[in-house]
């Protein structure tokens, strides 16, 4: 029971975290319309996960051999792009808020792009969702002799992750706007960097990028399979034996996106958040 609890908690944790952050973000900036998009995106992600979980059992041949991998790769890189976009969006808001222009956020323009928030929720849930569905299915298929404890553990893990997401939402409301923006922007950036580097690793595993030797091995300190290692891997992309392309991808992402997000500039008038001068 404990083992399956940890597995589903880990799988669902990331999605819960992202949803928790974005829900509190939307509430903070008063974009209540966005909440609907976010919820819909999450529900669609859940449905797609179940659909994919069932779908893979009905296909075979090349479709089964490469299909799920291709979908996984597309979802990973889409999630990286969307999260980057969201961090940038938050950062722009933060700039305006610093300049006491909080109330000038152009709601109408914001509404035009809120579907992106829905997409973020979709990718966040779908990315690990299909795997979680298969995992639960796997333990249920063998639940006959006293295995129901495992199923209960699995469901409890998802519930616990959802509770954590909720806690982040509640906690986020208490934080000052300034703190909330800087903490979550850095956090989302590291999460996306880890995701980006894991996408590169997946491409290597599929033989589309060259493999190379691990640069170091810290599994004696913290292995990927351990509970802490697993959580850190989801949060900041921790890997005990990363290779050169993975490390380069991570560093390049952090440097480029970090500069993009935090380089000192005058508040720019970009699309969504252009202050309306009156």
């Amino acid at each position, binding site marked *: 029971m404990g083992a399956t609890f940890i*597995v589903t908690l880990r799988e669902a944790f990331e999605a819960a975290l992202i949803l928790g952050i974005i829900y509190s973000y939307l509430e903070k900036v008063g974009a209540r319309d966005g909440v609907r998009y976010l919820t819909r995106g999450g529900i669609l992600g859940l449905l797609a996960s179940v659909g994919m979980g069932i779908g893979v059992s009905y296909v075979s041949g090349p479709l089964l051999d490469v299909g799920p991998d291709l979908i996984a790769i597309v979802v990973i890189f889409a999630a990286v792009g969307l999260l980057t976009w969201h961090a940038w969006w938050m950062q722009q808001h933060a700039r305006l808020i610093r300049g006491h222009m909080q109330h000038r956020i152009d709601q109408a323009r914001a509404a035009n792009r809120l579907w992106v928030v829905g997409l973020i929720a979709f990718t966040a849930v779908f990315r690990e969702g299909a795997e979680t569905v298969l995992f639960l299915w796997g333990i249920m298929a063998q639940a006959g002799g006293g295995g129901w404890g495992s199923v209960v553990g699995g469901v409890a893990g998802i519930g616990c992750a959802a509770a954590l997401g909720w806690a982040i939402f509640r906690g986020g409301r208490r934080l000052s706007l300034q703190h909330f923006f800087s903490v979550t922007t850095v956090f989302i950036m590291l999460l996306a960097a880890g995701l980006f580097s894991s996408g590169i690793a997946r491409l290597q595993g599929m033989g589309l990028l060259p493999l190379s030797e691990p640069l170091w091995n810290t599994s004696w300190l913290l292995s*990927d*399979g351990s509970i802490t290692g697993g959580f850190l891997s989801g949060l900041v992309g921790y890997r005990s034996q990363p290779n050169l392309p993975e490390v380069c991808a991570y560093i390049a992402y952090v440097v480029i996106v970090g500069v993009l997000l935090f380089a000192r500039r005058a508040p720019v008038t970009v699309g969504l958040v252009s202050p309306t001068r009156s």
Partner: protein
Amino acid sequence: MRRYVALVALVAMSVGFAGAAAAADPELPLVLEKNRWQPDVIKVKAGAPFVLVITNKDKGPEEFDMATPRIEKVIPAGKTVRLKMPALKPGKYPFVGEYHSETAKATIVAE
């Protein structure tokens, strides 16, 4: 025009070559039964790609999960999946069935 034809021919040749190379990759069977991999040690030639033909004889799905290099592959219950593996340097490459990692443990040995 002639250059174009030559280009098409080149592309066709390389596609054909890639196909031939893929067909020539050795295939190694791997079976999951009662949440265990059989065999639990698979010897492969280092430096050459190969194909794992994985059959899941259990009632539930399983995921082939290797940490280094990172390879994940779901094998639905009762299905067979062909998993193309990259060329490995000499060494030991452990992997698990993620959904039953206590029992489904095995190693690929590249020599």
